[in-house]
């Protein structure tokens, strides 16, 4: 076409970038890349091909990691980690700073290679991902520098395994590798089977930053390689990002191993559009957050009923303008996907749903690798496609009437990753943001990230945060050696000739603010060290746990009370315990055979600790390079199931219960199994302390019987186990179904007030932009 013809047509024309630089790097390695272990590339024995999703052309061959490869990598990491951890924070900061600079200096090469292997538009790689990668290393250089002063008493975990997905491989690499290295860990990274090249390039470049050999190893391969890495006994922590399905498998695989675990899983995000929103901006937000940037999961769009038609019309018109094609072209919005999403399945599902309307401007091209986004309207929450995981660039829309209903619909989900709220009403935005069950909430925005702001999910979207101080803490552990598991204590034996008690005292379960008899109708006699019958402890069963969880869930109003109010209740509890200190001390002496005065005093002190925290725990405002406020808000997780330690039956109970409720959680506690009566006595303290019914529930009984029910209950959001019985494997495996946070402690010493507080809150990030 002549210039004159183009003057009339005003079409864009092709504007591709050359991939030559990235191809040259591959060629410099002969097109075959082994694992990066101990600072050098190995020679691949068995290799598989990596194809460019946009063209199908083979880019390179990389090694299929075996168990032996994984072992070599972990061994190399273990040797290197000792020296790396001993370096000063400043020395590590210098290396991380150099890595940040290297990323900037090679941003074009890194972006090109990422686009070649992922099929995502070069613009996304270069303009969106790469700056975040550099920023992540730079920020964590800062944390390395400050680690000695900001995180006293904490040390690195050791060798950490990072397993990452294909949609943003460099960003995911940075999110795991930067904090891990800054904290003094060594890393074995297993990139996605589809996108290993960027990780290998990054490793290659890391030599220039002076990263010692072995501190970062990259083992390529498929799911089997990842499984071998996760299972390796030399690994102290597993950090996984990817699908909920694989996250659940990993949760089960590491259950009981003592390995630390963070899971950054997917799940449809939520976009809520209120009637006073800037609709055009909300449309752009949906385009940015849902339909572009290679989203692995779709989104649920909740639109206020009165404007739904207008909003959907605007959105459809905008979707039509999206350009799908060559990821190297400057004008491409949506490139090719390395893994074909099951969009046809969704389309069939929609076709079978009455009232649902599917908008799909173009059918998938080239074997489904180029996918046009889909908008599905007219669905109700009960539709399968509103409930299922939504793969790929799909928006599923429904309507709401009121803010309360919007929140209810948004939270009616197994997932809890990210949400965005669109309204010009500032107080409405904050009210909704506070109530959403999502790890990240963007107000009048989507798809904002920063190294200083934690990112991660709740519920089936996983646990742990990438970024921020809260994320960094997940790569550290207390310097103090973890005490060995407390021995399981046996109850005092029944004497041959029992003495009768003065007046029979019947201990009961405490559920929903009432003392209730156990469902099974059974009890166990509890004897003193001197052979005196102290009473009968009820034997709770799974139905009692069910009732207790129900009561705890009904008491969620507690979360909405002020910290000041919760502190008052905890102080009152301390007052009432103090008034009965002698009685409790005597009870403890009877139960355990040792004097109880010190334990009662310690329990009162813990109540004061918790009260103090309830009234003083602060959120943070993040130093993100962002015009507005990025806030980290600590909040309750919901219902916490707690198995108390065998020893110190009063202090163990109070040390865990008090911080949990101080932060607004409600809880179901299973008191010390051998010495349960201190807890049943404590019910009376609770009853007289103005604590709302259901906030604390106590079910005595056999830990081994009750733990699986508690850990497997979908209504429990976190489970803590300090039991003398070795239940960690059972609890962690059972917790996999709804991916609740679990915390396995090995003694009361573990339960330092600061650590319990950290475990008792969920930190959510809220992004509130500013501007006129």
């Amino acid at each position, binding site marked *: *076409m*002549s*210039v*004159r*013809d*183009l*003057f009339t*047509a*005003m*079409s*864009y*024309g*092709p*504007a591709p970038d050359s991939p030559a630089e990235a191809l040259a790097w591959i060629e410099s390695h002969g097109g075959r890349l082994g694992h990066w272990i101990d600072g050098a590339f190995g020679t691949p024995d068995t290799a598989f091909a990596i194809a460019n999703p946009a063209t199908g052309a083979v880019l390179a061959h990389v090694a299929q990691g075996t168990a032996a490869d994984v072992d070599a990598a972990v061994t190399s990491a273990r040797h290197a980690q000792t020296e790396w951890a001993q370096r000063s924070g400043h020395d590590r900061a210098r290396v991380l700073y150099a890595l940040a600079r290297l990323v900037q200096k090679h941003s074009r090469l890194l972006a090109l290679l990422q686009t070649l292997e992922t099929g995502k538009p070069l*613009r996304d790689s270069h*303009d969106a991902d790469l700056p975040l990668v550099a920023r992540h290393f730079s920020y964590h250089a800062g944390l390395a520098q400050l680690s000695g002063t900001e995180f006293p008493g904490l040390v690195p975990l050791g060798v950490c395994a990072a397993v990452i997905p294909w949609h943003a491989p460099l960003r995911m690499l940075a999110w795991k590798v930067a904090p891990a290295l800054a904290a003094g860990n060594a890393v074995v990274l297993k990139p996605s089977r589809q996108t290993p090249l960027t990780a290998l390039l990054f490793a290659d470049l890391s030599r220039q930053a002076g990263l010692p050999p072995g501190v970062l190893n990259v083992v390529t391969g498929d799911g089997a390689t990842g499984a071998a890495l996760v299972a390796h006994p030399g690994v102290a922590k597993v950090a996984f990002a990817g699908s909920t399905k694989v996250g659940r498998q990993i949760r089960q695989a590491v259950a009981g191993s003592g390995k630390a675990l963070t899971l950054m899983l997917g799940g449809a995000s939520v976009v809520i559009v209120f009637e*006073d*929103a*800037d*609709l*055009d*901006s*909300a449309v*752009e*937000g949906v385009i*940015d957050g849902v339909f572009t940037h290679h989203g692995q999961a779709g989104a649920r769009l909740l639109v206020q009923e009165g404007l739904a038609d207008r909003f959907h019309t605007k959105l459809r018109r905008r979707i039509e*303008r999206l350009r799908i094609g060559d990821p190297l072209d*400057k*004008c491409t*919005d949506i490139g090719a996907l390395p893994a074909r999403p099951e969009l046809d399945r969704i389309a069939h599902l929609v076709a079978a749903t009455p009232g649902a309307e599917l908008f799909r401007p173009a059918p998938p091209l080239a074997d489904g690798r180029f996918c046009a986004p889909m908008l599905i309207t007219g669905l109700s929450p009960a539709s399968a496609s509103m409930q299922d995981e939504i793969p790929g660039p799909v928006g599923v829309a429904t309507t709401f009437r009121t803010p309360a209903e919007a929140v209810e619909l948004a939270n009616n989900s197994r997932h809890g990753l990210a949400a965005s709220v*669109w309204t*010009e009403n500032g107080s409405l935005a904050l009210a909704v943001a506070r109530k959403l069950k999502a790890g990240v909430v963007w107000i*009048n*925005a989507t798809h904002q990230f920063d190294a200083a702001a934690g990112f991660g999910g709740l519920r089936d979207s996983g646990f742990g945060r990438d970024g921020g101080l809260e994320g960094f803490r997940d790569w550290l552990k207390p310097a103090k050696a973890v005490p060995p598991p407390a021995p399981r204590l046996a109850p005092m034996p029944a004497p041959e000739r029992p003495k009768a008690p003065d007046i029979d005292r019947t201990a009961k379960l405490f559920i929903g603010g009432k003392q209730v008899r156990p469902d099974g109708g059974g009890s166990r006699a509890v004897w003193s060290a001197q052979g005196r019958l102290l009473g009968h402890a009820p034997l709770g069963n799974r139905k009692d746990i069910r009732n207790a969880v129900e009561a705890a869930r009904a008491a969620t109003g507690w979360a909405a009370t002020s910290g000041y109010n919760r502190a008052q209740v905890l102080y009152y509890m301390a007052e009432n315990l103090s008034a009965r200190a002698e009685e409790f001390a005597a009870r403890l002496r009877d139960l355990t055979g040792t004097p109880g005065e010190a334990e009662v005093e310690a329990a009162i002190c813990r109540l004061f600790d918790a009260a103090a925290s309830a009234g003083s725990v602060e959120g943070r405002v993040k130093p993100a390079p962002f*015009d*507005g406020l990025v806030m980290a808000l600590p909040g309750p997780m919901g219902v916490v199931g707690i198995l108390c330690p065998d020893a110190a039956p009063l202090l163990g109970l109070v040390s865990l219960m008090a911080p949990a409720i101080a932060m607004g959680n409600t809880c179901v506690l299973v008191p010390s199994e051998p010495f349960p009566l201190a807890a049943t006595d404590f019910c009376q303290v609770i009853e007289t302390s103005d604590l709302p019914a259901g906030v604390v529930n106590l079910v005595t009984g056999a830990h081994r019987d009750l733990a699986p029910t508690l850990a497997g209950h979908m209504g429990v959001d976190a489970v803590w186990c300090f039991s003398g019985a070795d239940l960690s494997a059972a609890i962690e495996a059972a917790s996999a179904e709804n991916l609740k946070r679990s915390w396995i402690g090995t003694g009361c010493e573990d339960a330092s007030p600061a650590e319990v507080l950290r475990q008792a809150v969920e930190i959510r990030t809220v992004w509130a*932009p*500013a*501007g*006129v």
Partner: protein
Amino acid sequence: MTTDLTRAAAQLPQLAHPRNPGMALDLEWVAQAQANAPAIARRAASLPATRGVKKDHQAAWLCKAISLIDLTALSGDDTPGRVRRLCAKARQPVRPDLLAALGMEGLTTGAVCVYHEMVETAVRALDGSGIPVAAVSTGFPAGLSPYRLRLAEIGESVAAGASEIDIVISRRHVLTGDWQALYDEMCQMRQAAGSAHVKAILATGELGSLRNVARASLVCMMAGADFIKTSTGKEPVNATLPVSLTMIRAIRDYQDRTGFRIGFKPAGGISKAKEALVYLAMMKEELGHPWLQPDLFRFGASSLLGDIERQLDHHVTGCYSAANRHPLG
């Protein structure tokens, strides 16, 4: 004086599209208009990277930009000689050898834009070219001279031969939320212009917020503006991408609601070829192809043309150019 109507048809909206008749002031609609500044700023920041044109496409787009320029002289020291030079440049915006190499002979700017006193000179200088003359009016740039005189000024410029009138709105009506007053003023100015088409200058740099920009845009369109224009070029902040996006979205809503197409003219501060390409891509993405024609889109610019000439020279010769190799306007 002869007018080439076939040429004029390409330039004047009232001839190519049904002219916006305006509508009753809909205060509810005005009240509902929203513009979230941070979100608009993000979209504006990402826009330039999302679309690009290369090689022949870029040359064609730059020629298009020239055809959309209201070549402007709005200085206190303008003289008839200066304006005649400007008009000569409007007729022959690019060196003839370059236009020949591009196959774009006959390319002219969209219009020439001058003060009232220079209208007759410009009309005479452009006789036979089909290039319309636009007059800034109504007490430009502040719009604070007596209302009666501002209205009269429009009529005089039309009588002098201006076929486009760039009026300035009373910013105080926006800043005090007196939408009725703004509407009434705009209606009367439109009436005073008769068949000349009216560009309403919002002076967005003085409106305080993007939401005010959105609301003022709607009110002016309701009152019958043919074009809405960002700035006089004399405010501290002139055309910006966020302001332009806000106005463009208002134009789209107005078309959705009424069916009438309103033109857009960013003015002031656009001086680079690269920026012009971003604006064109934005018009194409947000409003579509019809807004890439002079009847619905203009650049108010004086130095933009020079940069485009150098880029076209580079396209033709492969060598980076210099200003002294291109004739002055």
